[in-house]
């Protein structure tokens, strides 16, 4: 599993240094696909409906549908190709690398025995911290959405480690539906707000009576 986790770390890190929203979406798709592979290896053979739903959630929803929906919205809006998810300067890049090192150090403290579980905690902590870094350094809607989805993927990865509890199929379905509903709303806001937010100095729309 370690090569998978290392590849996952690469997929988490690389889009930070490639200033393109296509790379960010490709990164999200890669995270979904790799997490599905990790789950398949951890839970193989898949016995319960909940496990299959979890696999579909990672592979299809996070790996394909979410990036595809966002891609269609951004393409329809003719979003300019360049999008820095963190400020393009040496300080931000150093902070990003430092966060990965701190995550590995944290995982070493949290999980004493070195091995796959320790690496999984390290990679998920890296994903969480880098997602929070994106959220804290950029204020445009597109970067914020990508940051939020990075955080959510990191939490999903953390869920894969340790002892697996078999969530009921309905609960698993509910979790996936809630995630899908949130992404649909995010796509709608990206469509209406634009990837850079409302234009500065745009005339304010007349407001009607409020409830």
């Amino acid at each position, binding site marked *: 599993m370690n090569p998978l986790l290392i590849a996952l770390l690469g997929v988490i890190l690389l889009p930070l240094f490639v200033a393109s929203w296509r790379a960010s979406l490709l990164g999200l798709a890669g995270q979904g696909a790799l997490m599905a592979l990790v789950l398949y290896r951890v839970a193989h053979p898949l016995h319960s409906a909940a496990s299959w739903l979890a696999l579909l959630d990672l592979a299809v929803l996070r790996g394909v549908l979410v990036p595809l929906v966002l891609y269609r919205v951004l393409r329809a809006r003719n979003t300019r190709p360049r999008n820095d998810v963190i400020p393009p300067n040496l300080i931000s890049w150093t902070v990003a690398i430092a966060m990965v090192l701190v995550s590995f150090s944290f995982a070493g403290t949290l999980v004493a025995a070195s091995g796959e579980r320790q690496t999984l905690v390290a990679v998920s902590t890296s994903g969480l911290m880098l997602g929070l870094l994106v*959220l804290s350094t950029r204020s445009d809607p597109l970067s914020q959405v990508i940051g*939020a989805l990075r955080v959510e993927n990191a939490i999903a990865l953390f869920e894969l480690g340790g002892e697996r509890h078999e969530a009921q199929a309905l609960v698993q379905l509910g979790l996936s539906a809630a995630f899908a509903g*949130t992404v649909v709303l*995010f796509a709608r806001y990206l469509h209406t707000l634009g990837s850079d937010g409302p234009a500065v100095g745009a005339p304010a*729309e007349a407001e*009607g009576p409020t409830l």
Partner: protein
Amino acid sequence: MSSLGLLVAPAMENVVVWLRVLRARASLVLLLVASVVTVFAIAQALSPSVPPAFGGTIVVDATSRLFLATLNPIFLAVCVYIHNRVAHSPVLLGRMGRFVPCALTFLLSCNAVLISSHLLVLWIALEVTTLSACPMIAIQGTPAARQASFRYLLFSFIALGLVFLGVLCASRGLASAGPPVMFLPDGLAQ
């Protein structure tokens, strides 16, 4: 049984309000449903004991009773205000077709949060409150309203994600201590 009424009544009316005939009277439908649900909630609050339903997933305990008896009357008061407001400003009538389903979903999920004892179901219900509140915030359709709604969704999404992480950590901690984790408060208490 009446604890299910807290969830079923808004869900049923949510379907009904999509009918074109009733959409014109959406605020009245909202008021009626809020009244029915408030009656159910007060009945729950006054009943001495309610047996758990769905294998312990729905439990009406003392805390649930307190908040059911507080939240639902407040929601009813809000519905009275909305009905009155719409009656005096017919311009608002056009928005009610979108507003009422969201408000009913919000009520349903709030009640689900209060009576659910399964942490993951509770988390899903909390997420649904966010998903139903966002369209209500952006209902005016102005850039400021949309921006506020987007920010609300973003903060809630991240906050609920961190809550979910907390639930996972709690389950890991309990699992390492020995007893099986059922994601129920009773299990946590043991």
